[in-house]
């Protein structure tokens, strides 16, 4: 009996993805303790990483189940941000809901009400686009490149739609200036950033629980593992696909709203410009692997922010891109060994 017990204890400490994630994230945070790195930039990096993570997890889930890189994902973010803008500027004021500067935050509670609406609209929109476009292509058994090219078309069309409806200029949610918090080690953090981090932690935990504890989440993982076996096990792969789009697009919409809050502006191109850090994060962690997307997002976020200590901030996407290229050359399957790009 005793050896058995010892064995289970050893397994309990096994090198799990969760542990790897924790170690790498801790290492990224510890980078701020280095004498030549500003802790404030590391903190900003984690906030940027949070937004990247919400987008990257969606891309990686969609890749895992549907086997193609959704290039329109950035524009799903944009859509989310603008649907929320419509809510706070047009819809909610009509029923007398207006405001900004909720407590320590620059935005008002209408943004909190608009967020779930944006999530629902973008999720339903993504499911509809799948039914109208991607499903037809899948039924014809086209390869992944055709699907990715189609999503490029969807990306451009969505951006055009945003420009038609909301014009191409800069806009923002109603806001009021707020003091930033001063923390030790010369760290200044805006209350909005704390909001972003908290929302991300809650959603990542929710996705984790969904994938590991619910019947649909397990079916999603099973379908990503082996779609044919999922079919002959009796898994309803059509509803797995709908759930995947709903979760991926819902997270993207949230990321879009948070990005608009953190940049204090909305632009039709905001999501498209975010694609490079998204794909860099996904590639770094290993595409198809949600843990990988999370870790990749924090590494990209922290690297991009810390690089501004020496580089012009406009080079942030270049830093993300360079990391992605190096990763593809050195270890194409990423840190967690996901699928290879096909």
């Amino acid at each position: 009996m005793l050896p058995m017990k010892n064995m289970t204890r050893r397994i309990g400490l096994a090198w799990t993805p969760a542990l790897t994630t924790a170690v790498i994230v801790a290492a990224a945070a510890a980078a701020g303790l280095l004498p030549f790195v500003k802790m404030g930039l590391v903190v900003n990096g984690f906030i940027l990483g949070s937004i990247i993570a919400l987008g990257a997890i969606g891309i990686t889930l969609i890749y895992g189940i549907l086997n193609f890189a959704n290039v329109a994902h950035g524009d799903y973010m944009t859509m989310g941000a603008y649907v929320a803008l419509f809510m706070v500027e047009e819809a909610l004021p009509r029923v007398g809901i207006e405001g900004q500067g909720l407590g320590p935050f620059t935005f008002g509670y209408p943004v909190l009400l608009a967020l779930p609406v944006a999530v629902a609209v973008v999720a339903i929109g993504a499911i509809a686009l799948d039914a109208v476009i991607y499903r037809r292509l899948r039924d014809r058994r086209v390869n992944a490149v055709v699907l990715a090219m189609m999503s490029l078309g969807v990306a451009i069309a969505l951006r055009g739609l945003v420009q038609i409806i909301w014009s191409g200029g800069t806009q923002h949610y109603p806001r009021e200036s707020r003091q930033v918090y001063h923390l030790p080690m010369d760290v200044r953090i805006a209350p909005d950033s704390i909001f972003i981090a908290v929302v991300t932690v809650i959603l990542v935990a929710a996705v984790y629980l969904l994938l590991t504890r619910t019947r649909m989440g397990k079916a999603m993982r099973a379908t990503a593992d082996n779609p044919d076996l999922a079919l002959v096990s009796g898994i309803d792969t059509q509803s797995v696909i709908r759930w995947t789009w709903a979760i991926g697009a819902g997270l993207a919409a949230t990321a879009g709203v948070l990005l608009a809050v953190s940049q204090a502006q909305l632009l039709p191109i905001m999501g498209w410009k975010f694609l490079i850090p998204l794909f860099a994060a996904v590639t770094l962690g290993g595409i198809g692997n949600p843990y990988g997307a999370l870790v990749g997002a924090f590494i990209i976020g922290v690297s991009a922010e810390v690089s501004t200590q020496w580089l012009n901030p406009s080079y942030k996407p270049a830093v993300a891109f360079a990391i992605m290229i190096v990763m593809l050359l050195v270890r194409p399957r990423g840190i967690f060994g996901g699928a290879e790009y096909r």
Partner: protein
Amino acid sequence: MALLEASEVVAGYGETEILHGVSVAVNEGEVVTIIGPNGCGKSTLMKAVVGLVRVRTGRVTFKGVDISAQSPERIVRSGLCYVPQSANVFPSLSIRENLEMGAFVRSGSHPDRIEEMFELFPDLALRPGRKAGSLSGGQRQMLAIARALMLDPALLLLDEPSAGLSPAIMGMVFDRIQSINSAGVALLLVEQNAREALRMSHRGYILVSGRNRLEDRGPALLDNPEVGRLYLGA
């Protein structure tokens, strides 16, 4: 009336036609083995029956219902489960999760049925949280069969259950297959290890180049000198 009846099935992939009109029947509670040289269409026939490969002409009935154009999900629901030859577990899911997926068409997590599977395959019960991808070939095969048994099917299709297993493990797998059958589950087997399979089969079919070649009782096929020479490597 036969439990499963495939008649004059024509099927294939893309331009290629693999089955040129194959007929196979399995009666309630029976063990039926299909043997034949590589590429004769054994696996394709199984895939056509479960709905993974489209039946072009001909017809497949299960419990008297035409299933030739049904989705795999509906076929599974009606009590016909299938274990593919390779890639037959979900590697990143735990043993328990693999079993839960076998019963996906019924909601719930089915702890009782999972316990029954653990009794049938005690190896799986040792560490139910272990990832299927880290199991040995034999354990993996056990898990694949257990997954397919979760719905308590009337008919189980097994494609090469002994492929790549050591003789000892193979004996155990065949032993389990027999106990599954004595519990009332009809079995349709495709097997390279034809002697062993025919020995426990009520009937057998020999397919050659996508057509029926011979059909007889299991022991009779074993005793047939032509079968022995051509297909059993006597």
